[in-house]
């Protein structure tokens, strides 16, 4: 078995990014789309941590902290908007919100 290298982490991160992307693209439920976005951000964090380790530099971990912060903030605001939307439209399905088009 090969030792685990940075490349492994990068591959794993890319796979997670892919999963998140697929979730954003295909799931109808907005809550789950938001979760998929969390997956994407976690993929980024995996990248950062792996680099941080490989480079022996703590900057990556700090970057990851900020990415987490951002993920939290985005999720909070996103869910807030979702509640406002749900209050008016009674739906959480992404393809049912299409008043604005063309």
């Amino acid at each position: 078995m090969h030792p685990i290298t940075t490349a492994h982490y990068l591959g794993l991160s890319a796979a997670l990014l892919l999963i998140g992307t697929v979730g954003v693209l295909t799931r109808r439920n907005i809550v789950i789309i938001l979760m998929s976005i969390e997956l994407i951000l976690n993929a980024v964090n995996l990248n950062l941590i792996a680099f941080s380790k490989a480079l022996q530099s703590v900057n990556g971990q700090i970057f990851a902290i900020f990415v987490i912060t951002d993920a939290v903030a985005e999720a909070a605001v996103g869910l807030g908007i979702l509640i406002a939307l749900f209050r008016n439209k009674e739906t959480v399905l992404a393809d049912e919100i299409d008043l604005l088009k063309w």
Partner: protein
Amino acid sequence: MNFLDQIWLIPLFPLLGAVLMLLFGKKLDPQPASDVAVAPGVEHTHDEHDTHGHGHGHGHTHDHGHDHAHGGGHGHGSPLKILVSLLCPGMVLLSFLFSLGAVMQLAQLPTKVHQVVQFTWLAGMPFHMLDGRIATFSADWGFLLDPLSAVMILVVTGVGFLIHVYSVGYMAHDNGYYRFFGYLNLFVFFMLMLVLANNYALLFVGWEGVGLCSYLLIGFYYQKKSAADAGKKAFVVNRVGDAGFILGMLLLYALLGTSRFVDVNHALQSGQFHAETAGFGVLSAIALLFFTGATGKSAQFPLYVWLPDAMEGPTPVSALIHAATMVTAGVYMVARSAALFQLTPATSSIVASVGAFTAILAASIALVQNDIKRVLAYSTVSQLGYMFLALGVGAYWVAIFHLFPHAFFKALLFLCSGSVIHAMGGEQDMRRMGALKDKIPVTHWTMWVASLAIAGIPGLAGFFSKDEILWQAYSSPSGSQVLWLIGLVTAGMTAFYMWRLMNMTFYGKSHVAPEVEAHIHESPATMTVPLTVLAIGSALGGWLGVPKLWGLPESFRAFEHWLAPAFAAAAAEGEHGGAHGASIEWILMSVSVAIAIIGIAVARYFYHTKPEIPEKLELRLKPLYGLLLNKWYVDEIYDFLFVNGLAKGGGRAMAAFDLSVIDGAVNGAGWFTRFCSTISMWWDTWIIDGAVRLGSFTVKLLSYPVCFLQTGRVQAYALFFVVGVLAFFGYYVIR
């Protein structure tokens, strides 16, 4: 007073008028509309209720007022309105006086060039020119008065002033009186910027500005959908040309590193650039791009389509913008770039060909128009074609020379037609006119002068300039017999359609509807006085450029001498007239006079002596417009040969013979012209207009799929995002 250093005042006056009108005009508006406009700052909730009531009432009076735009409504002579009537023409008059002063002082200068730079407008960083040298380009708010722009400002302010005066009478009963004058003044401002600019970028300011004013004025009668459409068409078509102009301008900067006309000319004449006789180099490209811009603004093939439609605007607008001034901007610009075109024979020959083609095409279309203003519109296109013909063969001063009297007689023609329309209560169809000669005598006589002038009757303005163009087309090194011949035929057609117009309108039997007949009246003095002044100009303007051949004192060739410094480069290799004998020039001159007279005679024969001939032809042809060309052709021959010639003749063979020889020849000629012009019309409607429509249609059509991509589903958007990423990555792979 030193007018030369105060050139900037010349455009400023009309700008002042425009700003005053557009900002405060609504308050001056004699219509009861003003009481609706409560102080705009008032809180909305407060006045919402009662303005609703007023709004309704006003909307009604407004429409009512417009219906009677020409019918003598109300609101005449309120003091505020008189203020408008004095202010706006007054501003233009001031400009005219300042222009006169400036031009007179310019004449004293030894160099005949005066440049005033107010301040820098576009400044740039140093950049690498095409040849790698570093240049810092800049464009200023600067004015250039030289013989060329002197002619232009006098035309713009002089003719502009007369048209303003005329409008006071013409628009007296119209709503939006202040708006009209505001736009008109704004137009004069931009036109003056255009001709006074000392660099291409500033010229472009005026160039676009006049387009905008043209747009607003064409659409002035906004209740008419056709008017609004026409305005849009004008603007869009012009913009296509402008695209060329912008590119040409930028390319010129990149090449020469300067935008000032003086420096550009200097650089081009310095010998650094050689005439691109062999191929099509960057200079030719620049010239061609400039010419593209000119075709848009000056309504040349294939971008002329907007001009006839532009006739939807009020008639003074047609006179000022679409005949006398704005449409000549392209001519002016090409003349301004004479040094450039001088070096690019390939482009110049394109200019000449396009000009000649446009001239004959438009003239042939004018032959069959029934709307009095449309005849004049096509005539304008045709005359502009003449000017480009002159430019193309390198006779720059001749083009300007033609521009000058053309401004007079074409403005006059339009104003006269406006006077006719005014008298007829808004009727524009010549088939419902006739025998107006004695009812509106001043209009008739002034129009008579103008028609003779445009037809090219010796002694009147049009003759000299047109003859000079024909001569240059023939004799210039870049001219040819073909160009001359086209010009000649066009001249014949011009005479024909002008006298067709005169005959249908002023002479013969009256076809006026009885209820209109009663109201026919000569226009007020504010309208007839400008007509008279313009008529004098049309009659005498040509004597500034009498052919050398006539052997008159040099002062009769003042125009050429005046412009000579502006086209020094062109003049240097000019003087080619000597190559051809004087006798040829005499012959050509006689031929062109002859064809003008023939045109007039034929028109008179058709529309006065035997008015039934065109009617008959009309009847025959009308239903056939829609049919296939071939079938129509066969039918017509059949009709002509058998119905006219044989069946009707029947037993009276001798009489029939007489008919077919004498009348038949005339008929045949008439039929042939009609045939040609029908083709031209068809071409105009389906091919040219069609191309424009197709263009806008395609754009609109393409717009739909782009819009439909926007499905409203957020995940589809995300998918596009991902597809974008995919494409970017893919680019790496396939690179």
